[in-house]
């Protein structure tokens, strides 16, 4: 597949953004700067970026509790995100949302979600809306392997299949839901097999291979946009950190984690782009420098931003 150079570079830059952002969040959280709790996307960067690179700004996504990666992949600003994580007035959602609840409709981001699987019917509804409005928009719905065991998944995919809705269901299969290995509570190996029941293609891809994810997403987005209906893409991946920051890692074999870290998505992709002459070593370094500078500025913005006024808690409930 011929992928445009700017797309290839965008994929690199956004994966790096997620990597650096999440690394920084990890440190800031450990330092006690961030309230609440955070779920990091480290190790899964290629999934969100591969999918969103195949979409337009005007397309929609729904996200999860592990949402930072999706938001950056869809073009979210690291400063506004960081400010939200700090609970500041200048955050994407004025400090009301926090890490688990970032939404930015201008970029089609319909919200991260604290309720596992809740994004699935919401994405399906956005797909129905796009179809009814004949807007030509497509929806990508991110969710985990755990979420695929909820009723919402099965109900939504059945409806999307029946109505040919323009939705791409992206299952991030990282093998675990919190501390439970999913093979203990699910009989089948590939979640993509479930697509058969709902009359849509089910595709398994290596979620640590950004190009593979992009190609699968490109085809699914194309299918959705041309009215042929939904696709279920299962991305096999792994989270490097525990379920949330601060949780002890008692349930994963260390060899398993080590093997997945070895198969990390960014370094091989960087090598590939250099080998293929898409970017030079110097360009790669310049992109990374830019990303880090942008993140530094974002953290500074978040730190120096004002807190919301207490009374602002009462605003925004009603239209």
């Amino acid at each position: 597949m011929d992928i445009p150079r700017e797309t290839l570079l965008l994929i690199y830059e956004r994966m790096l953004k997620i990597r650096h952002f999440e690394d920084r969040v990890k440190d800031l959280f450990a330092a006690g700067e961030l309230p609440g709790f955070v779920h990091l996307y480290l190790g899964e960067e290629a999934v969100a970026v591969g999918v969103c690179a195949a979409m337009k700004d005007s397309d929609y996504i729904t996200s999860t509790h592990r949402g930072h990666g999706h938001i950056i992949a869809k073009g979210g600003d690291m400063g506004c995100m960081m400010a939200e994580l700090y609970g500041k007035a200048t955050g994407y959602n004025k400090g009301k949302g926090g890490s688990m609840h970032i939404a930015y409709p201008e970029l089609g981001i319909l919200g991260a979600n604290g309720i596992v699987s809740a994004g699935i019917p919401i994405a399906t509804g956005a797909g129905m809306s796009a179809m009814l409005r004949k807007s030509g928009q497509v929806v990508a719905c991110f969710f985990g392997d755990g979420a695929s065991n909820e009723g919402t998944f099965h109900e939504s995919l059945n409806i999307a299949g029946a109505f040919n809705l323009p939705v791409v269901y992206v299952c991030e299969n990282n093998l675990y839901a919190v501390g439970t290995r999913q093979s203990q509570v699910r009989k089948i190996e590939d979640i993509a097999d479930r697509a058969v029941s709902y009359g849509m293609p089910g595709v398994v891809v290596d979620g640590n291979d950004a190009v593979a994810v992009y190609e699968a997403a490109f085809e699914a987005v194309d299918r959705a946009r041309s009215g042929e209906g939904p696709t279920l893409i299962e991305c096999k991946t792994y989270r490097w950190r525990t379920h949330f920051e601060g949780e002890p890692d008692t349930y994963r074999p260390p060899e398993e984690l080590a093997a997945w870290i070895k198969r990390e998505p960014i370094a091989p992709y960087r090598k590939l782009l250099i080998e293929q002459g898409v970017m030079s070593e110097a360009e790669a370094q310049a992109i990374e420098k830019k990303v880090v500078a942008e993140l530094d500025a974002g953290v500074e913005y978040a730190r120096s931003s004002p807190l919301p006024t207490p009374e602002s808690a009462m605003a925004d409930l009603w239209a």
Partner: protein
Amino acid sequence: MRQLFYNQAIAEALAEEMRRDQNVILWGIDIGPYGGANACTKGLYEQFGPSRVIDMPVSELGYVGMGVGAAATGIRPVIELQFSDWITLASEMIINQAAKMRYMFGGVLQMPLVIRAPVGGYLSAGAQHSNSFESMFSFVPGIKVIMPSTPYEAKGLLKSAIRDNNTVLFFEHKKLYAMKGEVPEEEYTLPIGKADIKRPGSDVTIVTYAYMVGKSLAAAETLARQGVDCEVLDLRTIDPMDREAVLASVKKTGHLVVAQETWRDCSVSSEVAALVAEEAVDYLDGPVVRVTAKDVPIPFSPVLEEYVLPKEADIVAAVNKVLNRVSV
């Protein structure tokens, strides 16, 4: 006396009841080798094995609904929801099935089902991880609702809940898991439906429960230093409510404050206020004042959350208001 953490007291109650009755079976997510998100099932998988402590997929409607079927057929399921916030996904099975089956079928079957779930805010956990839904479920006939405020009560009431032949929602407060308190070594149970006077007093009754008990006691201490003697009544069971205890206290003090963590409208505090209005209005020497969360979802940012959730100072202010007293 021996001290236990609230979550240890819960684990101990579960273990004792499992030893006592083979049919007591636990299921939920991450309750097996992981020991539960709040360590309430720590060690139980090792002790009782995978057929008594069962890990489930993330399928609330499914595994809570299974509790209904299992309870109707001789098992006494004790189900853990990782947070009570998504009891919403399972609510069909609780509200339309578990709560109604015995009655609707003319009493021909039993529903010995316990659902344990953590509630509450003050953790910057955001709008979908800070809820307390006890009022919603207390509204429905056929469900008992328990909210213990100490390790001692958590253990004694959970044991009674497991032995009860009805559907019981057992809401544990997240902030209380790390609370330490006296728990006797010898076996005991506490009766469902009985309130407890946590602090006797003569001037004002503060009716409260769960995490707000601690805040009410702290407010009572502050007020005691100003010469106001508060009685703090811990409901312990929200439904069935210990109406006699509420009325007796109000008849004694003539003043009522109700302090709860969650939203005000159509809530437990509404019920307490209505009860007193119906049964003891002649004994009141001032208005009833409720201390509750403000009527918005619980926001993430600590400054916002602090503004929305009730504080000790709000209880002090409420007492001053019912006594028509200028705040000091």
